[in-house]
C-alpha cells in the first residue's frame, strides 16, 4: 500500500475524496430509500392503533386530528364502532429518553382509562431501556386498565405508582412522561369524557 507517499497534502486530499465519494453515495441511497422507510413507519403506526384500542369499524387514520403540545404535535386517532367512540389512540412523545426522543401509541378508553400502550420509536439502550418494548418485557402491562385519575404516572422512586425497569430509571421516567402527556392533553381537550 505504500506506493503513495504520506505527505500532509496527499493524506488530506485522499481523505477528502474518499469522504466526498462516500457522502455522495449515501445521499443517493438515502433519497432512494426514504419513501419505503416512511411507508413502513406509517404501517407500523396503523398496526399499533389496531393493538392499543378496542375493536372498531371506522378508519381512525382518516379521522385523525393534531394538537400542539410542548413544541411538538400529538396526533389523536379516534376509534369508533358505528357512531360511538370506543377508544382513542394517541401518538405521543417524550424528549426525556436516555438517548433522545421516544414515541408511543397510547390507547385510551373514552373516560381516560389506559387500554394498552405500544412503542413506536426509540433509541434507548439495548438490554436496558429497550425493555419498554412490549416484546422485550412486561413493563407495559402494569399500565393496562389503570385510570390516571387515581394511578400516579411516575416511577415509585418519584412517589408514583409505576414499577420502573431495573437499571433503566431514566427510560422508565421518559415512558411515564409520554403517557402522562397523552392523558393530560386528552382530558384537557375532551369537554366531558363519557
Amino acid at each position, binding site marked *: 500500500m505504500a506506493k503513495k507517499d504520506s505527505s500532509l497534502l496527499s493524506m488530506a486530499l*485522499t481523505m477528502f475524496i*474518499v469522504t466526498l465519494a462516500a457522502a455522495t453515495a449515501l445521499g443517493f441511497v438515502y433519497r432512494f430509500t426514504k419513501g419505503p422507510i416512511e411507508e413502513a413507519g406509517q404501517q407500523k403506526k396503523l398496526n399499533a392503533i389496531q393493538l392499543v384500542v378496542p375493536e372498531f369499524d371506522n378508519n381512525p387514520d382518516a379521522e385523525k386530528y393534531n394538537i400542539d403540545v410542548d413544541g411538538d404535535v400529538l396526533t389523536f386517532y379516534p376509534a369508533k364502532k358505528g357512531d360511538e367512540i370506543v377508544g382513542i389512540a394517541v401518538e405521543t412523545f417524550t424528549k426525556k429518553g436516555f438517548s433522545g426522543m421516544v414515541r408511543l401509541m397510547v390507547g385510551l378508553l373514552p373516560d381516560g382509562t389506559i387500554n394498552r400502550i405500544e412503542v413506536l420509536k426509540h433509541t434507548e439502550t439495548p438490554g436496558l431501556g429497550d425493555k419498554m418494548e412490549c416484546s422485550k418485557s412486561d413493563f407495559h402491562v402494569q399500565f393496562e386498565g389503570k385510570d390516571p385519575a387515581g394511578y400516579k404516572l411516575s416511577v415509585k422512586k418519584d412517589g408514583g405508582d409505576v414499577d420502573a425497569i431495573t437499571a433503566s430509571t431514566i427510560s422508565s421516567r421518559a415512558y411515564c412522561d409520554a403517557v402522562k402527556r397523552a392523558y393530560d392533553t386528552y382530558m384537557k381537550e375532551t369537554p366531558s369524557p363519557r
Partner: protein
Amino acid sequence: MNQWNNFSKGFFRENAVFVLLLGLCPTLAVTTSAINGLGMGLATTFVLVMSNMIVSLAKGSIPAKVRIPSFIVIIATFVTIVDLVMAAYVQDLHKQLGLFIPLIVVNCLVLGRAEAFASKNSFLSSLIDGLGMGLGFAMALTILGGVREILGSGKIFNISISYFPEGIDGMLVFVLPPGAFIALGFLIAILNRILKKTT
C-alpha cells in the same frame, strides 16, 4: 493460489467463524434462529465484497498512513447502505437484527480482509476472496443459528419440527447467550476435528 482455492478457502479451511475466529460478536448475538443468521451473513457478505472491490481498486492511491481511516469510511458507507436498504425493504429482519447491522463496521472480518488481502491483491482476487469469506461466514452463522433454533425452540426457519415432549418448546438455554457459546464451542471442535482428519 488459483481462484477456486481463493473462493473455497472461506468455507472450511479458513472459515471466519470456525477457524479464524473473527466476527464472533455478531455471530453469537444474532444466531437465535437460522433466518437471522442467514440475513446477517448475507448483509456482511455484501459489505465485504463491495469494500474488498473498492479497496483493491484504490490500493495504489491511498497513502499508507491514512489507509485505516479510509478503509473504515469505505466500510461504514456500505454498512449504512445495507442498513437503509434493509429498513426500506425487509423491515422485520431489520428489526430483528437491530443494533448488529451498524456493528458490521467493526466486524474484524471485514476490516481484516481489507487490510490483509484487498489492499495487496488484484480486483478479481479481492472480489472472489470477499465472496468466499462472506458466504463462508453466512454458512457458519446459518448453521449455528439452525442448531440453536432446533435445540432452543423446536423449529427451523420458523417451521416446527418439534421432537420434544408435549408442552416443551425446546431447551431455552440455546436461545440465550450461554447457549450460543456452548453451541459454537461444539461446532468449532467438530469442524476442526474433521479438518484435522483430512489434512
